[in-house]
């Protein structure tokens, strides 16, 4: 993932500040500026916050428009950790390079995927021991699925009997229609496959329909398009925080839409049964607060399984949130991008599409992608499912700008239709590897006496490092983050997720064992105080 560090004000988002540069509705601007002085450090009881990316921005450019300067700021600031990492990545040849436990990517199943997506391609990774043993599965598959999960000719002696020619024709098909202007919603063959796929894996009560599917190049684009077609400039979505911070940018860049944070607490009090629990009461309060500031809220974003908490909502909770949204005529965007990455079987995951009756089907929009569940964030495939044809059509109109190659659409359809491979090879292996990595990291954390939140979904653990901060401020949080980076391990700090309590970090565990071990050693070294002190102001 990409983290969105903020400028060093120590204020997450509660200070809307000046909004004039963006041409936001003027009736929002004035009211907000008067309200906007509260910082969460000073007012720890603040239950919501109206995000305003422009507040963090100061410089000006002779070449760019005002919004262009803000847009550029996103690029510059997002780069910090990412760029440092890319300049000094850990590799076998560079063992002192940075280990990335910050970006939410699944690096555990590349061996499976490379064989599936591009048979005949060289393997990029070495399967873990468990992975090798599981390849025995393949022997029991039907010939057709063998073709699909077929051999990497050069590197896998295990699978050599499989006919490589056949396997190539599976993924490398070039038809003229795939090279021409597509149906902007996505090729029909793919939308049909997506509908079937989601019907099956979301356990929808009735078959989902291809006409409700829109295909584009990732969920980022989907957030952007939805924000644009559902909101006017300056309007807002509610989002429980901490949340995947890049959404701020996605809805802002084109849409000029803001996020109103519904702050969740680590403390378990009253009605709540677990840390950072979302309740309807909190939603109501945030909505009311935003309304009182003159901010028009048009929708609610739910991430399920949640990022960074690794939490899942029960069907009962989902219904409550959806009913809340219906009461207030809010759209609900449910981001289910980790839906197949629930590796703990005891966690009963329920897609919103599995509900028998949606309170407001016309305002419920579901998002899914292959970035996480299939560990292919670089493939750029995302999809929207909505019964609302107005919304589907409007989003499709914008797909002119968010299209993906016809050849990739073909490959995606091939992948999604290969139920045997997914069910018998990929998912079991992926879950086993995720679980093993998760167990390792959580045991390490327990040994260090570090509290954390994680319920067995996603690629990350939400780690409570508050006791390592000399003072409970975001400056200290950032300093600790830098110390990790100086010790060659990249984490994501809580402020990037709009967490209102300083000291939380997201630690991604879905990496190969050797890197994970080294990463955890470095984390331990920093926390046990054996770390190098920051070397200079530039770091």
């Amino acid at each position, binding site marked *: 993932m990409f983290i969105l560090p903020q400028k060093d004000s120590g204020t997450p988002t509660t200070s809307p500040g000046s909004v004039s540069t963006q041409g936001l509705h003027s009736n929002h601007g004035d009211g907000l500026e008067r309200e906007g002085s509260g910082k969460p450090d000073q007012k720890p009881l603040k239950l919501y916050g109206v995000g305003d990316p422009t507040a963090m921005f100061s410089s000006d450019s002779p070449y760019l428009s005002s919004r262009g*300067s803000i847009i550029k700021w996103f690029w510059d600031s997002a780069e910090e950790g990412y760029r440092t990492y890319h300049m000094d990545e850990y590799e076998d040849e560079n063992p002192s390079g940075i280990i990335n436990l910050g970006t939410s990517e699944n*690096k555990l199943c*590349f061996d499976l*995927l490379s064989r599936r997506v591009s048979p005949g391609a060289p393997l990029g990774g070495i399967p873990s021991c468990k992975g090798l043993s599981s390849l025995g599965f393949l022997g029991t598959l039907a010939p057709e699925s063998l073709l699909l999960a077929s051999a990497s000719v050069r590197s896998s002696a295990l699978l050599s009997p499989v006919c490589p020619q056949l396997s190539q024709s599976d993924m490398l098909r070039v038809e003229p229609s795939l090279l021409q202007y597509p149906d902007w919603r996505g090729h029909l063959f793919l939308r049909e496959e997506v509908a079937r796929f989601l019907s099956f894996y979301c356990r929808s009560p009735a078959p989902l329909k291809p006409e409700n599917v829109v295909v584009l*190049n990732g969920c980022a684009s989907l957030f952007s398009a939805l924000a644009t077609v559902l909101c006017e400039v300056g309007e807002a979505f509610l989002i429980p925080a901490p949340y995947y911070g890049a959404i701020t940018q996605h809805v802002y*860049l084109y849409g000029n839409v803001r996020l109103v944070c519904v702050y969740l607490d680590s403390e378990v009090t009253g009605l709540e049964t677990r840390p950072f629990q979302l309740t309807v009461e909190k939603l109501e309060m945030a909505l009311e607060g935003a309304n009182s500031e003159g901010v028009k809220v048009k929708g609610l974003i739910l991430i399920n399984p949640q990022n960074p908490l690794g939490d899942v909502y029960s069907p009962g909770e989902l219904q409550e949130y959806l009913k809340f949204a219906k009461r207030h005529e809010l759209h609900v965007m449910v981001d289910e991008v980790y839906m197949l990455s629930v590796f703990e079987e005891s966690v009963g995951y329920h897609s919103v599409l599995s509900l028998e009756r949606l309170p407001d089907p016309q305002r419920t929009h579901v998002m899914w992608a292959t970035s996480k569940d299939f560990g292919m*964030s*670089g493939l750029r495939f995302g999809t929207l499912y909505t019964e609302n044809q107005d919304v589907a059509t409007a989003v499709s109109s*914008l797909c002119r700008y968010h299209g993906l190659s016809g050849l990739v659409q073909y490959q995606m359809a091939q992948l999604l239709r290969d139920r045997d491979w997914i069910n018998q090879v990929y998912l079991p292996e992926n879950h086993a590897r995720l679980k093993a990595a998760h167990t390792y990291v959580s045991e390490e954390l327990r040994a260090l006496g570090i509290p954390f939140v994680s319920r067995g979904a996603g690629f990350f653990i939400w780690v409570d490092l508050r006791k390592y901060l000399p003072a409970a401020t975001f400056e200290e949080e950032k300093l600790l983050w830098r110390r990790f980076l100086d010790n060659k391990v990249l984490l994501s700090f809580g402020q990037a997720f709009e967490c209102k309590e300083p000291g939380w970090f997201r630690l991604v565990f879905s990496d190969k064992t050797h890197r994970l071990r080294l990463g955890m050693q470095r984390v331990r070294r920093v926390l046990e105080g054996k770390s190098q002190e920051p070397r200079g102001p530039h770091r």
Partner: protein
Amino acid sequence: MSGPSDMPSMPYGQMRDQALGNRSIHTQLMEMVLSLRQTVEDNITQLMTRHQQQELALEKQRHNQAVRDQEAFLGHLMFQMLHYLQSGATGDQSFQPPDTSMDSRVNVGGGQQAQSSRQILVYQRSDFEDTLISYDLSNRGIDISALYHSSFQDYTYQGNKYHKDENTLGYINLGTSEKKICIDLLAERLSRTDMLYIDEDLLQYPDWRGQPFLRKEVARFLTSDCKAPARLDPENVVVLNGCSSVFSTLAMVLCDPGEAFLVPTPSHGGFILSTHLYAKVELVPVHLESQVTEASAYPFQLTVDKLEQALLRAKIEGKKVRGLVLSSHQNPLGDIYSQDSVMEYQEFGKKYNVHVIIDEFYMLSVFDEAIPFHSVLSLESLPDPNKTHVTWGTSKDFGISGFRFGTLYTRNREVASAVSSFGYLHSISGVTQYKLCQLLQDREWVDNVYLPIYRFRLQEAHGYITDKLKVLKVPFLNRGSGLYVWINLKQYLDPCTFEEELLLHCRFLDNKMILSRGKTFMCKEPGWFCLIFAARPLLLRSAIQWFHQVLVEQGQDWGVKQLEDAKKEEASTSQPAAPASLTLRKS
């Protein structure tokens, strides 16, 4: 689809029983249409599910394609009917919500497929006027979705393409630059096994400016094909998913909402969409004229004088102009700017402190060797390199618009960074980036196989079409590059207005031909059309026959009209000269 005629009968009957009351004829009509639509949908669903049981995947895809075609076509008809009804029902012609809002109303009653059409209609009837407004979309969302259906090509054409064997009654599209002239070559090249490669980096989050290996290759490719005096720097390259995306992002980062770009017209309609849809940037047209005068040595010549006038006019109107958008060659004129002109336009940009965006999408599509193409990147020194931005893509020169690849070259790091912010939203799959890199890298194939054949085929098709046009006495412009000729059909318009131009356009449509008309290119003079010739010979032959037929009909009507006019004004002695089309009819 079988038996479309019996579709409406059942629900229509049901509805009449319950519906014939004191309701207006409009409501009843509306219900009929809705039930018709429902029936069609049901029918299609049935067909699809039945087919799912069959095994052959390819056959299935084809079948589904056919079903979709039917659906799109019927859907379009429905929408049109609804649209007419709705304007009649509200009695207010000025209120024209997008067609799509009607579509959703079918679902509003409960949204589930289980709903019967009758239940939906009850809901509909309860508040007829309200059904015309979408509650779900923002105002800009409504604008955006209106665009989806506004284009005939997107809708009916996609559903009913002409095919020499399978669909001889389908539409021939000579209107959009979708070209299949070399698709066979590309399909073959992209099927080779070197395209089959994957590594971990391709599957993980990329550099949002584009993968370094691809940016390097693009820089190399442009250095060579644009004849750049020095090696171009990969750091100045940003790669996005298509040229529309490049334009959209440039409009975002160079202009604030309501600010403007200058654009010489006639100009490709895609600009308008890409600058408007997300970015809300205006285009200020620099109108060019077909008349050759002292100031312009050839038809539609762009001069600095005209640029200055347009800029001045925009300023007077209070518009803030942030840039000038040029395309060389110029779509739809086929003009290629001389090196001197390019320099002049750049100087103009520098003088007035505006960005100059140059679209060179067709730089490899110059098939007449006598015409030298000069890329902006070939200039030794640019007047204002920090405000010069060049775009290119593979949609036109390689005919692979389905690949979604466009690139920006700018020395301005601020602009490059700002555009890169959008990388997330306009990213290309790593796998596709790899393939593009392989394609551009294969100089042997590009230079010795692809380009010679491509240009030869273009030249041939161009020769064929221009010969025919000469026989038909249709004046045209084209300067040996690009995929289309800009033709003048003024002589078939009476009076010569945009209304008549539209009517002629519709006459082409009625005859299953799609020709883009001048108005959509913001041409100031009525009567110009854009005719794509980059099609395979067989299709082109049918097309020109149909084209001829339409002109003959138009000419006949023209004649009849003239005759009637003459009768009305019997006193009149001055008969206008017989139009060329009358001669055509005899031939």
